[in-house]
């Protein structure tokens, strides 16, 4: 028996409506994409959905109290919350440079978490 599953592509703001036709867990056709990324996304989403994670970690000594960070690659969708919870336990001190690794191989996903901005140390009067 064939089943058709619908997805909305998150690859870019176009938001293509994707259709994956499968037979006994095997993908037999993908429709509705308008680029290579869309086709890949549909197949991925059907078998192993993954997401980029962007969140913040606590930082002291910088202009702001939070440092924005992201996963350098995608992690399994069902690990997103756990990744954020793990990052909540991290406290950094300025300075930090954009691209600095904040957590290596987060939760064993094989993916690093990196800073997405530079946060210089601010001289504050004591």
């Amino acid at each position, binding site marked *: 028996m064939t089943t058709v599953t619908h997805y909305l592509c998150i690859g870019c703001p176009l938001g293509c409506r994707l259709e994956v036709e499968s037979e006994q867990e095997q993908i037999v056709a993908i429709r509705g994409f308008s680029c290579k990324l869309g086709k890949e996304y549909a197949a991925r989403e059907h078998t192993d959905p993954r997401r980029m994670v*962007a969140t913040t970690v606590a930082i002291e000594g910088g202009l702001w109290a939070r440092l924005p960070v992201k996963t350098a690659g995608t992690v399994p969708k069902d690990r997103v919350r756990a990744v954020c919870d793990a990052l909540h336990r991290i406290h950094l001190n300025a300075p930090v440079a954009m691209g600095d690794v904040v957590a290596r191989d987060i939760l064993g996903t094989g993916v690093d978490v990196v800073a997405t901005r530079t946060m210089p140390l601010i001289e504050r009067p004591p």
Partner: protein
Amino acid sequence: MITAKTAQLAGRYDVAVIGAGPAGIAAAVAAQAAGCGRILLVDREPEAGGILNQCIHSGFGLHQFGEELTGPEYVSHSLAQVDTRCVDVVTGTFVADIAPDRALTLMGGETGVRQVQSGVVVLAMGARERTRGAIQIPGGRPAGVMTAGLAQRFVNMLGVLPGRRVVILGSGDIGLIMARRLTLEGVEVVGVFEIMPYANGLGRNIVQCLHDFDIPLHLSTTVVEIHGNDRVEAVTVAPVDEALRPILSHARRIPCDALLLSIGLVPENELSHQLRLRMDPLTGGPVVSSTLETSMNGVYAAGNVLHINDLVDWVSEEAARAGRYAADALQGRHPPADNVRLVPGDNVASVVPQSVAAGREHTVFLRARHTFEQSAIRFGEIYTKKVRYVCPAETIAITLKPAFLDRFPGGALRIDIYPRAGEAE
């Protein structure tokens, strides 16, 4: 030079750019590339970057930088193009006034009031969010009611949560992004409520911000009352009928301690009003020519101050044109004046710029009034473009080739968007 002290600035500049968001940065970089020697880039915030500093999610930069960046990364890539030998970036400084002779009054927290003179001015003040007053929700005035963008700043920069159990009103992208953001910070997001029968934000945000976290989206539903004295205690929501009137017999009360509003942006045009620029009621921004010059000679505008954009890449592209045209004018290069007035017709909510000229290529930004799966955009008799999907929440960018306009005698050119029958490709 990068400084927070207005006292260190020169008395005269070739180009002054008001607002150092993506629009202002791109305008300054373009003016620098066009050979302007003295450029001033002013922002009231303690650092350049504008609203993108708080937009920590990714989805920016695919067009401009060929990769998907977060907001802060986009800022950093943009700022890397600024040559601080010819651009003075002054932060923590508010532009309080622009005189018609382009004398700017600057107010800096560190050094007080200062006047500088500029040859040309680019307005890039961005937008501000619509607040509770704009939709007049009845009820008390407790703490905990705020715009989604303010909550975004609280969470992403200041490290403060807006509440523990939050209701979001309005399905604009900022509200959707905040629904996910708060969930990941351990806040309970009860739901997103939208008065219209369709969501306002991008489909990809509905999927990755709401569906991924099982956050319900309630369409055709609005908040009709806010409860609480010191702090929000609950809101009452009700479905609406076709005329968007709440059906109070079906109202229900939802306990919560914060209400976020994601109900749209308005261009920030106090300075434009002070300058008495001609404004377009459809965009809320100044009327501009194809060179992005406002009704006042030597004053240009780009980015959200001109019209609300949903893609920052287009903001940078548009602002770069404004910066280049401003520099051209300063150096005595004036392209032929516009001879075609663009007039919004059926289903067109707004058009920018409001006029164009034959002989050059133009990028025209449109907003549709309705959603069509398949549509066509008609520029009078001269050009029709098929577009796959249009909706009010998304800007449509159309390139007008010189070949089309050269066939047009000049005058008013009407633009219509109409639905097209037929299957999806």
